[in-house]
């Protein structure tokens, strides 16, 4: 009985983790290329959820079109933010950039609260809430879809990054932006493209979450955003497979904490992990150690 319980909790953890993974990948991509923690990333996830919500309720779209629309919308938003707020400050001190990112995050949260109201909105049922049984283990159909979509998107991303020219440009720019530029790569476009991809993934996560946990509100991005960031750091910031691993680990860790230790402390434990990792091994699990050159 206990082993089955453990398995069930593992499944819970993995499906939760796949959401964190999707968001974490966006963080890690942006950090890899312009060394910025995009505080607003969690809010782009929220915007994705809202776009999904209105696609379903107003435009009456089904699952796949909703997903695509949300991803596209989030991508556009990400690029706009980058062009308007981050690009002009590329040579400014880091604190300025960080504070700007915080400003964008607050703007998105409060703007959406103002336009759409602070009350959470119930996401209508887009996918049937069927349950699949593997013996006594229950897996929700939605959980499977969430996990599958995440995996598919990650694979697609890996393909783009390693098998396309744009991906090569991304890798080059994240390694050494100036040299990449000297070699003829249009770093501005590459950076915009990176933002677009990362934001699209966050938007997808938003829709998936909206469907699985049908309650969305303007502040829903704060906590998942923070936890996803912890995941990215845990896996190794700047390393895409690391974000995936980190996300899944965070989800499982959080679930197991709630199941076996204490639900009250799960948030605190998540942040403690962050601090411990940063102190002991800032490069994360899969990251490379870099030395700061003077």
């Amino acid at each position, binding site marked *: 009985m206990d082993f089955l319980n453990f398995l069930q909790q593992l499944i819970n953890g993995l499906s939760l983790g796949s959401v964190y993974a999707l968001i974490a990948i966006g963080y890690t991509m942006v950090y890899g290329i312009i060394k910025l923690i995009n505080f607003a990333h969690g809010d782009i996830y929220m915007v994705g959820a809202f776009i999904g919500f209105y696609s379903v309720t107003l435009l009456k779209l089904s699952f796949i079109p909703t997903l695509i629309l949300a991803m596209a919308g989030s991508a556009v938003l990400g690029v706009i933010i980058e062009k308007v*707020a981050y690009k002009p400050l590329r040579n400014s001190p880091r*604190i300025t950039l960080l504070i700007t990112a915080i400003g964008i995050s*607050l*703007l998105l949260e*409060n703007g959406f609260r103002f336009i759409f109201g602070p009350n959470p909105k119930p996401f209508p049922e887009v996918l049937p809430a069927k349950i699949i049984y593997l013996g006594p283990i229950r897996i929700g159909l939605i959980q499977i879809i969430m996990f599958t979509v995440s995996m598919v998107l990650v694979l697609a991303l890996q393909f783009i990054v390693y098998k396309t020219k744009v991906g090569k440009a991304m890798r080059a720019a994240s390694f050494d932006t100036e040299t990449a530029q000297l070699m003829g790569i249009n770093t501005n476009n590459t950076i915009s493209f990176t933002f677009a991809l990362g934001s699209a993934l966050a938007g997808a996560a938003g829709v998936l979450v909206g469907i699985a946990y049908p309650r969305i509100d303007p502040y829903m991005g704060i906590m998942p955003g923070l936890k996803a960031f912890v995941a990215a*750091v845990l896996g190794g910031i700047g390393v895409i497979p690391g974000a995936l691993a980190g996300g899944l680990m965070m989800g499982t860790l959080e679930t197991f904490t709630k199941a076996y230790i204490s639900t009250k402390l799960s948030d605190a434990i998540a942040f403690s992990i*962050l*601090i411990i990792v940063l102190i002991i091994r800032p490069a994360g699990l899969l990251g490379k150690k870099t030395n700061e050159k003077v």
Partner: protein
Amino acid sequence: MGGIKKGLNKKSIITALILILVYIILYYMIKTRVINPYKSQILIIIGINIILAASLNLILGFTGQLTLGHAGFMSIGGYTAAMMTLKFHLPFAAALLAGGLFAALISYLFGLPILRLKGDYLAISTLGFGEIIRVIIVNLDFIGGPRGLAGIPKKTTFTWVYVITVLTVIIIYNLIKSTYGRAMISVREDEIASEAMGINTTKYKIIAFVIGGFFAGIAGGLYAHLIMFLDPKTFGFLKSMDILIYVVFGGMGSISGSILSASILTYLPEVLRSFSDLRMIIYSILIIVLMLFRPEGLMGSKELSLNTFRKLSNTGSLKRGGKK
């Protein structure tokens, strides 16, 4: 040497006189209810926010360390002070001091391992720390847990806040003008270079962090004995953002900037209460615009002083404390 000393004394006396005059005027206006209790509460909150902004400015503006968990220290100080009053019946000053000291202790313990981190990582860690504090408080039933701590006697008066705010500003201002302050500023400007020059950057970061935490704790104690009730949700990430906004808006590196912005940004929402929804949107746009076009905020790193008036008029006056 002697000439500067004379200048110092004269300036200090004038400043002291102005401060006392302002106090007397405001005190009597409150006593006679020309300023009603609701408005005087706003004045008190302005004082508390000035203390918060100045203490954060010490860490962020002068030492260049972005910390996003400042509200955590405020809550530590607030809860400690409240418990001292409620359970041990300590006099107000002692309770406040206990709050500040405990907050300072936690800053120290937390700062030791954390302040080695740089920039973004430090910011996120402090954010996490603020959240951890909130979770711990929610789980401690003996200080009220999620219900909060109620029944705190109202001991914060205008006089207390005025005196403590003035003291805080004086202490922080003098700290900055001292060798400690110069070391902190060098850490902000170029940490690697100052390390190379033999300055123990970690030591000064910790000093700034601890002192900042101390005053945040004091502010928390004042707050607790004003609202008479502490709710752990008040001191979350959003409150830390509020304080950050004060500092950024006033100018990172300017104490008078912090005083001005804390006053304006506390008072304005009360006046514009009907537009409270819009307020946060305006603030966020303000932050972004500010960072894009005037990252130095209202006052940059300059201070508002009597010399400012003199500077604008004469040519041959002593330029004191001018930053670049």
